[in-house]
């Protein structure tokens, strides 16, 4: 029997497969089903700063619009007493999840400003979350905004949140940083206990008949594993944080690769959305079988075993890797 236990953000997890933030955790029932399928922890769907602000302003706008303008219709809606436009519904779900499942629950907060909303971090902690994942999901479009400023903002935000809470804090990043190791290091110094690599941006598409920019949601494939795999392998041992690999985890083998690169856990969503929550138990089964076949005793044994520092040819992760791939490709063309 192989030992699947791992530690992530100081949490004892029964295996290295974690459900990442997704609509699957929007309902208590979904969280229960994730636990039943065998995942070792659930990252809750993200509480979006932008969404909270927008919902609140939109609700206010529509409840107010048209009111006190016309004598017969001084309002258009009844007063319902309370609205869950703030974080209350989210917090309540964490509370209920903590009561109903035994695996750790990781709250997820998505925001980019150091406004009053970071108070939500504390509220998530108080609701019983075992850890918090901060999702830095922001697309800079202002040419006046420099990378330094942006990174400094992020770091300040992490530090602010760190001050708000005592539970572990992970930061989920996009891959688009010029000097990722340095930035990762700064985040760790600001108080991040973990890094989740990487966030997937949903890239909009064009409809060339209607001339509209249309949102497009494409689930990940195993191919996407390679980007986080490389970066985790590079960062492992260089930055003092736990890492989680997210994006492209679809099979037991994908999980094993994540661990070997240096991740403490692998996070999955697309596989579960595509095949149903029960896919988690199959992934775990595949992983276990692989470990048995190749005679691995524990997950601990393989974490970081193929990190850049651990492999025989560290340059394989660096630029040469790219060149070599191209050459290989060219060679094949000739033959």
């Amino acid at each position, binding site marked *: 029997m192989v030992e699947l236990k791992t530690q992530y953000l100081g949490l004892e997890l029964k295996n290295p497969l974690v459900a990442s933030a997704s609509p699957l955790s929007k309902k208590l029932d979904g969280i229960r089903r994730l636990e039943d399928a065998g995942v070792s922890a659930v990252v809750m769907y993200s509480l979006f700063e932008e969404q909270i602000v927008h919902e609140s302003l939109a609700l206010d706008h529509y*409840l107010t619009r048209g009111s006190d303008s016309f004598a017969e*219709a*001084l*309002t258009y*809606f009844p*007063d319902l007493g309370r609205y869950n436009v703030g974080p209350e519904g989210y917090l309540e779900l964490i509370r209920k999840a903590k009561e109903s499942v035994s695996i750790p629950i990781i709250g997820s907060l998505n925001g980019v400003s150091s406004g009053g909303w970071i108070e939500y971090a504390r509220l998530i902690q108080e609701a019983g979350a075992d850890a918090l994942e901060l999702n830095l999901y922001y697309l800079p479009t202002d040419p006046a905004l420099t990378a330094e400023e942006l990174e400094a903002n992020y770091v300040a935000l992490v530090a602010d949140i760190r001050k708000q809470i005592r539970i572990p804090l992970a930061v989920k990043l996009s891959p688009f940083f010029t000097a990722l190791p340095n930035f990762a290091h700064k985040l760790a110094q600001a108080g991040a206990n973990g890094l989740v690599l990487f966030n997937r941006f949903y890239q909009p598409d064009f409809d060339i008949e209607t*001339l509209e920019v249309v949102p497009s949601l494409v689930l990940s494939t195993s191919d996407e594993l390679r980007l986080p795999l490389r970066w985790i392998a590079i960062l492992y041992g260089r930055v003092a944080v736990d890492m989680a690999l997210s994006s492209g985890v679809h099979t037991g083998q994908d999980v094993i690769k994540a661990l070997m690169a240096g991740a403490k856990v692998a996070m999955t969503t697309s596989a579960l959305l595509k095949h149903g929550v029960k896919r988690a138990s199959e992934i775990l089964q595949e992983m276990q079988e692989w470990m048995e076949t190749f005679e691995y005793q524990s997950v601990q044994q393989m974490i970081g075993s193929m990190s850049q520092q651990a492999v025989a040819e560290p340059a394989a992760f660096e630029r040469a890797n790219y060149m070599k791939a191209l050459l290989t490709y060219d060679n094949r063309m000739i033959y």
Partner: protein
Amino acid sequence: MSRQVITIDANEAVAHVAYRLNEVIAIYPITPSSGMGELADEWSAKGIPNIWGTVPLVVEMQSEGGAAGAVHGALQTGSLCTTFTASQGLLLMIPNMYKIAGELTPAVIHVSARTVATHALSIFGDHSDVMATRQTGWALLASRSVQEAHDNALIAQAATLESRVPFLHFFDGFRTSHEINKIEFLSEDDLRAMIDYELVSQHRARALSPDHPFIRGTAQNPDVFFQARERCNPYYEACPEIVQKVMDRFAQLTGRQYHLFDYAGAPDAERVIILMGSGAETAEETARYLIERGEKVGVVTVHLYRPFSARHLMKALPATVRKIAVLDRTKEPGAAGEPLYEDVVAAVYEGLSQGFAPFKQAPVIVGGRYGLSSKEFTPAMVKAVFDELQKDQPRNHFTVGIEDDVSRLSLSYDPSFSIEDPQTVRCVFFGLGADGTVSANKNSIKIIGEETDNYAQGYFVYDSKKSGSVTISHLRFGPKPIRAPYLIGEGDANFVACHQFSFLERLDVLKYAKPGGIFLLNSIYPADKVWDELPREVQEEIIAKKLRFYVIDAYEVANKTGMGGRINTIMQTCFFAISGVLPQDEAIAQIKKSIQKTYGKRGEAVVQRNFAAVDQALAHLQEVKVPDKVTATRTRRKPVADEAPEFVRETLAPMMIFEGDRLPVSKLPADGTFPSGTAKWEKRNIALEIPVWDPEVCIQCGKCVMVCPHAVIRQKVYDPKYLENAPATFKSTDARFKEFPGMKYTLQVSPEDCTGCALCVEACPAKNKSQVGLKAINMAPQPPLREQERENWEFFLSLPEVDRAAISVSTVKNSQLLEPLFEFSGACAGCGETPYLKLMSQLFGDRVVIANATGCSSIYGGNLPTTPWTFNREGRGPAWSNSLFEDNAEFGLGMRLTIDKQTEFARELLQSLAAQVGESLVDAILKADQRSEAGIREQRQRVALLKERLAGINDLRARLLMDVADFLVRKSVWIVGGDGWAYDIGYGGLDHVLASGRDVNILVLDTEVYSNTGGQASKATPRAAVAKFAANGKGLPKKDLGLIAMTYGYVYVAKVAMGANDQHTLKAFLEADAYEGPSLIIAYSHCIAHGIDMRKGLDQQRLAVQSGAWPLFRYNPMLLDEGKNPLILDSKEPSIPLADYVYNETRYRMLAQSDEQRAELLLKAAQEDVKRRWLQYKQMAEMVMKINGNGHESAPAQD
């Protein structure tokens, strides 16, 4: 015992008592009483219990008649039951009121008294509704203020239980129902102390029950009915004394002593006014003022009007009275006098003849009318009445408050007479509905009333527009209770604020300002620049009255703080800062506290933005150093252009600038008849941005023209020769119409009539190929374009209209060349209803008679000052009328019956006159094919010729035919109304009219709520949507009116959504009109009450169809004759989840936000509704059926 003091309006004050004292509440919306029902429904939804610990059951009925029936049934089975209503609603309750009283059933209903519609509808207040119930046997208890309404709601309940006489408790609609005032709130203990449960128990014991059965509601014959009817007398005799005892008990409890007739005035008064309602408070305060100045006057306030106790009245009157004026807030044309007057005359006569009068000699008694439809009733008018009584022969049956230059009945009064207490601060605010001025003032008055020792009063005046409406807020506060149920008078306001700079150009804002007062202006011009921008009249008034003048650029602050167009908190902060009601810091703390309370539950972001607005406001407030001379070069604008017709200039124009009160009787029509097409004279200039046409990108599809709710964007095709005199900036391009080779095309916008809704831009399918964000029309700021486009618009109008007979109107593109005969209504910007009406006016407007149910469409269609139904160059246009809410289908059927009968008569006469008129003409007229525009035109020409010939024939039949000859040209009847009418209150009539088989076209503008009264649920409200009266989300699915109508088999039925398929809508309108039987079109009308971005209204229509929530179909009985299935499904199988449609709308979202579980449950059920209905329709449309036993089968229609 100290009680809570709160600042609320009378609707809320009454609802608080009624809700806590009842178990069953049957409601139906009607202005101005709707607020009471809405609160009851909200409280019930929130689970708030009554004084017996159970949550009252609140049920919406299909009409007030239905509510009265439900009340009757609930009472008969032992519930404590109430309802709230007014006006026509109360009239619908009358039959049940007789029954409830006849059965001696304790109950209280609460009425915010409102004008009954006569020559016109009015939503405002008088006693004509209540007076129409005085014969029903109900006790009528009148309140004159917010506090009294609160108190009397309880007194009535206690008295009804003891007396068994049912009570109608009433107070003045708007003036009291909507006045915010500071009152002492009755606690639950107060309510319990006043209600003797033993009496409730007795009521229950009298209830129908199979456990102790009896029969009530028998039919009686001449032998006993009379005697039985007299059997109730002892109860009525006892009732007044019971009420007085209850009032006495109430006084012991609260210190507020009421009497059936309350006398206030000099003990030796010689002149007395008797009246009831809010006017009594004004009269009493005026009498007090006059007594202090030595006059011997007094006022009797009538509280218990029925049962009318002559003895109590005599007891109330001072023995010294010599002259009495009885004032009625109602009119009974043809009566000996108005009702209260007659009652007083009878009482005095009886008092004298039976010896219970306090005087020996009969006083002179005169009657007068005042205050109809919330006409102001001021101290000046009261004084005029007292002055009239001083005359040897005071005028009888007079009016006061108007200038009657026709019957010469009106008393003149001095408008400058004022009794305002110098310690009371008076403030008048001009704002736009959309800028939040009223909300801010309601908030301020609550702060002042509840957070300071001051007494406070707020009353709000609105114009009749649903977009760009002007509001005027009247606020009073001070150390003494405020008993002034009338507007702040000219020259009486210490503080005047104008929240929109543009108002200064057309309204006399400063007439309210008191010399030495303060003027606060929201201005884009700073303190050192603003003076030169003011019109001359404003400068003159500021100087003459020595006003202190402040400015703030509130829109700049609002923009900076993310408040958008809402300047409410900013202006409110300035008001507190300048007026000094509270120390500045405290005022700001209170405003913030109130923001937290009001907006807190909507989220922190909202609160923070408002806080920021408060903080920024003071920094931007500037005092203007007022120059000592007038520098202005321009004056205030005239309300209408000089070329407007005289009636518009002299009668309608004053109304546009809030000066309608000054119009004398002679300026108004005697029978409610007004000219059509007056909206075009009221240039409102409310759009900040207007659409601008790009001819290069335009594909001339006409979609923008079709969807424009206000008919401000139009297209024309014309001969290039007309361009010779075109203004320089007039745009034109080659027409792309196959029917019009070589012609020019223009798409033109009326800049001053546009509301800026941008629906046209959303509808535009053409995108600029180099910059896809641009379309063939794009929004641009209005002010720089105003002059140029006004000139272009005028020129555009001068171009000839398309020849209706020359085109086929069956395409959207062509149909939109037709001139709209419904334009520039006051509907909401982006209204979803009006495009359908406009389309109907384009297609059939020159031969249509319209019956319009009361509701949004009757308000934007027929509310003065100006109205949108208009006429073409030939002088033809829609003939429009509104009867009631409930009877519209029948009203329209009556119109059809006239047309059918007169057409038949005309044909009969024509045949009989064939020899004189000429056989060939007669034959041509009788056999004319009028299915096409060309056919109609030819028939019109024939009828014109016929009339010419008739003029020369000396025969009575020729005279008869002359009057009905126009009926020989085909006419259409359109019966128009909203879902509240069609699904609920008017459904019985609608069903009957459909069943009649007559050729009428019924257009249901389905917004899925009662839009006009503020969004109450109807049976058209879909499952899972929140509406008032369905605060928990509607639990049952929308009634399928179309399906019901289809069951007749001979009714043309179509369900349309212009935003989803405009061509389908057009087709349905044409088919409905062509079908020579009843037609029903149910039209999806997006609405402000859906809580959507109105620009996206068309998108929502599309999503409604795609989700299956609104399947498009036509059921055409004509197809049966062709052996086809009459039902054609015109939309595809649902392709998106219902959630993708509904969660773009606040009405659905707010339930998900407040009760996620219920929202989920209801959404799931609603999704199932959609699926099920689709399957049902699909099966029906695919059905192959045998018809008429002919043996042939009908295949699904192919279309």
